[in-house]
């Protein structure tokens, strides 16, 4: 039998050294629901040293164990010297993200991919963190799932909440939506590559087939089924009553794990007996959350001018207009230009005028008049309808009196953009570096613009329109699916086969795959959530999200 090759890398993925361990003594457990630590016995002379041969505790280093097509990776969490051999303790790579961070409760919404949100959190705290010690060297994050929805932590009125990235975000996304976090080292080009560790958020939407395991066949050495029974009440029908419009939505669960608003889909079988759960909602409130979050972010285009004659060159003004238009197209959101002048409100434009004309009333006498009225602190935000109904533009200037001498004045045009996708997630400063002619793109304070918008009747109109939209329907579906999913996978099925079983191929399947496990003619639709390589040459596959070991229950921290 070939031995396992154990390779150790430091925290920057520099290869340090390797050793061999016997195939018969190797055991390994992986649990996607309750991450575990594994122990590996290595030869006595296998001691952690840095590249410079300096002894060092290897905590935080990476370990890779391979043998033919098998590969197991982890982050070292402990090292112990024994009399005859040493022991390395290592945790699943995903525990790198067992950290608490602050997130906005509305940052993940029903209109947004959960995987995109998770990626933004990892990029913010583990790739671009100002505290560079917390960054994971060479981490690259990709979002490969298009499932939308909310997470349990968003059920709070607080604007911000502290969450554990692993438990509250990653594992919750897995448990409720089947979005699994795959963490793998980029083994190619280990010395020169910049991508050392890859995180992928993915679901099994790309798999059209569902593998079937028959546990009564002779190749299965052992199997156990623990199916959660909530006094026999597993929800398979959800009625959602909307208090605002008075509408009622009903969702039915089918035996293949799908659901529908149709109580009798042709070719499918409803789960029986029917167990109903009623959920009361107010879609107006739900819609308000969507609209709030949709336009929660804000950035601004700012063009500064030093004016001699009180006019901004028309070419630049056109460029500014064009930049606003581009942003609207790019982000499909509102673009506004605001002004918070220190001078009289009539200095710049006529309400209702289109942007091209707003500067025309601006004359030297306006400047002079403004300088004489510096004590007037007025803040005005003007909304003018621009383009389609869901696009508005505000425009205005800011005035800096310090530069107002000898007839010179400095003015700033500002165009604020606010919307859900405005801030690029990968940017460390949360601002897109952008330049359009002489118009700099910066983040600025435009709170007043959004505040004014939220106090307007247009905002209320928007919410009502949203409340009757597909987005709301998606929220309701997710609430129903959440109920179904909690029950669908709330079981613990364990199947033990030989490691080299050609029928089951226990090492082949990705954690997170959907399966139909059959016992005595009954099919259990489930997902693969754990795998254990046992010392006796067998592999135990664990399905479902329920755990029955007390230690694991404690580890799950309420997920």
């Amino acid at each position, binding site marked *: 039998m070939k031995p396992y090759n154990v390779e150790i890398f430091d925290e920057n993925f520099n290869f340090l050294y390797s050793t061999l361990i016997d195939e018969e003594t190797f055991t390994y457990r992986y649990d996607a629901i309750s991450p575990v630590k594994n122990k590996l016995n290595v030869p006595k002379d296998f001691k952690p040293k840095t590249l410079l041969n300096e002894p060092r505790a290897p905590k935080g280093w990476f370990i890779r164990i391979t043998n033919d097509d098998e590969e197991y990776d982890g982050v070292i969490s402990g090292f112990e010297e024994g009399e005859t051999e040493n022991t390395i303790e290592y945790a699943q790579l995903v525990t790198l993200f067992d950290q608490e961070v602050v997130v906005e409760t509305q940052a993940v919404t029903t209109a947004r991919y959960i995987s995109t949100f998770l990626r933004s959190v990892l990029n913010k705290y583990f790739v671009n963190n100002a505290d560079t010690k917390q960054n994971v060297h060479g981490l690259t994050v990709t979002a490969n799932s298009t499932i939308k929805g909310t997470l349990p932590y968003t059920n709070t009125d607080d604007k911000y909440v502290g969450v554990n990235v692993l438990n509250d975000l990653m594992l919750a996304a897995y448990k409720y939506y089947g979005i699994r976090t795959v963490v793998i080292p980029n*083994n190619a080009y280990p010395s020169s590559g910049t991508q050392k560790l890859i995180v992928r958020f993915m679901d099994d939407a790309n798999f059209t087939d569902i593998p079937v395991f028959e546990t009564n066949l002779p190749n299965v050495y052992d199997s156990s089924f623990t199916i959660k029974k909530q006094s026999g009440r597993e929800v398979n029908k959800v009625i959602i009553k909307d208090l605002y419009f008075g509408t009622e939505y009903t969702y039915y669960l089918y035996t293949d794990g799908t659901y529908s608003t149709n109580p009798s889909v042709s070719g499918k079988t409803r789960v029986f007996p029917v167990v109903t759960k009623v959920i009361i909602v107010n879609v107006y409130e739900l819609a308000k959350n969507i609209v709030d979050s949709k336009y929660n972010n804000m950035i601004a285009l700012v063009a500064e001018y030093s004016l001699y004659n009180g006019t901004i060159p028309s070419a630049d003004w056109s460029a500014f207009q064009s930049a606003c238009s581009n942003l609207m197209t790019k982000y499909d959101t509102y673009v506004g230009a605001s002004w918070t002048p220190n001078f009289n409100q009539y200095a710049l434009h006529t309400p209702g005028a289109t942007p091209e004309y707003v500067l025309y009333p601006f004359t030297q006498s306006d400047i002079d008049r403004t300088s004489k009225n510096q004590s007037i602190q007025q803040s005005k935000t003007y909304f003018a309808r621009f383009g389609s109904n869901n696009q508005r533009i505000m425009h205005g200037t800011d005035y800096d009196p310090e530069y107002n001498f000898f007839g010179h004045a400095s003015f700033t045009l500002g165009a604020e953009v606010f919307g859900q996708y405005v801030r690029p997630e990968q940017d460390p400063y949360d601002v897109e570096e952008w330049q359009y002619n002489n118009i700099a793109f910066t983040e600025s304070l435009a709170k007043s613009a959004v505040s004014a918008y939220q106090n307007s009747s247009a905002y209320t109109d928007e919410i009502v329109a949203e409340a009757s939209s597909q987005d709301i329907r998606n929220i309701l579906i997710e609430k129903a699916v959440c109920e179904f999913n909690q029950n669908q996978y709330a079981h613990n099925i364990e199947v033990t086969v030989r490691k080299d079983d050609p029928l089951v191929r226990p090492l082949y399947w990705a954690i997170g795959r959907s399966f139909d496990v059959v016992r005595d003619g009954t099919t259990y639709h489930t997902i693969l959530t754990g795998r254990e390589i046992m010392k006796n040459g*067998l592999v135990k596959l664990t399905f479902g999200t329920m755990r029955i070991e007390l230690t694991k229950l404690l580890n799950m921290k309420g997920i």
Partner: protein
Amino acid sequence: MREFNLRNNIGEEYRLNSLDNFFHTPEGLGFQRNAVFQKIGDHYKIVRDGFRQQPVSGQIMFKSDVHESAYNRYLKFKNFLQEIPLTLIYRIPGGEFQMTCIPTEVEKTEINSAFGMNVGIELTPTTMWFRNIEKEANSSSVTLISDSVNESPCGLRFSGVTKSNADLTWTQTVDGVTVMTGKLLGVTIASTDMVYVRSDLDPYAIYKIPSGGTSTSSLYAKSDFSTKRFPYIYKGTNVFTVTGATFINVRGYILYETV
């Protein structure tokens, strides 16, 4: 006619077929397996199966005669044994087989017969029985044939690298199926350098030795970790191929449970 010999760690050989010191009544030349079964009704399923380490034991008769006493012959043997590990060499009509071992018990006695002193010895193996095998060619590939189902470690050696900063690549097929590939990335290798890829060392190693053999530098960290890299000889026709070099050598051990 069979023949036993021992070789110690400094290369000295000790003949055990000499009438002066003759190894006889050997035991443990077969094998034992660590097979674990699970009873299912009236049959058993194999849960796991593996080779079990089994000592080879026997007696060595140290002869006493007018030329030398048995005591002296034993003392010479004792000195030979100190340089461990030992290699037990077993020659039979089917070929020569070896086993690396450690002397774990020697039953020293007195002269106990008219012939001399009979001493019991136990040799515990650290390897299976193996047969040395080596092939090389001034071309890009060599072929080895193994008759053993045991995966046998070996070492590859390349030279004549055709590019100074080559992506040196090696592959192995068994009966036409690719089972292993390996690659070095961005490493400066001279055409006179020897590059070694070895699974017969613990830990595995990839290194180069420049012409003259004055130094060794590890290339492990420069290898492509996404490939298997390390060769093993499997049952069947093993073809080793190198790209980017003009000479290839394969040296290994075909492992057997018993011979």
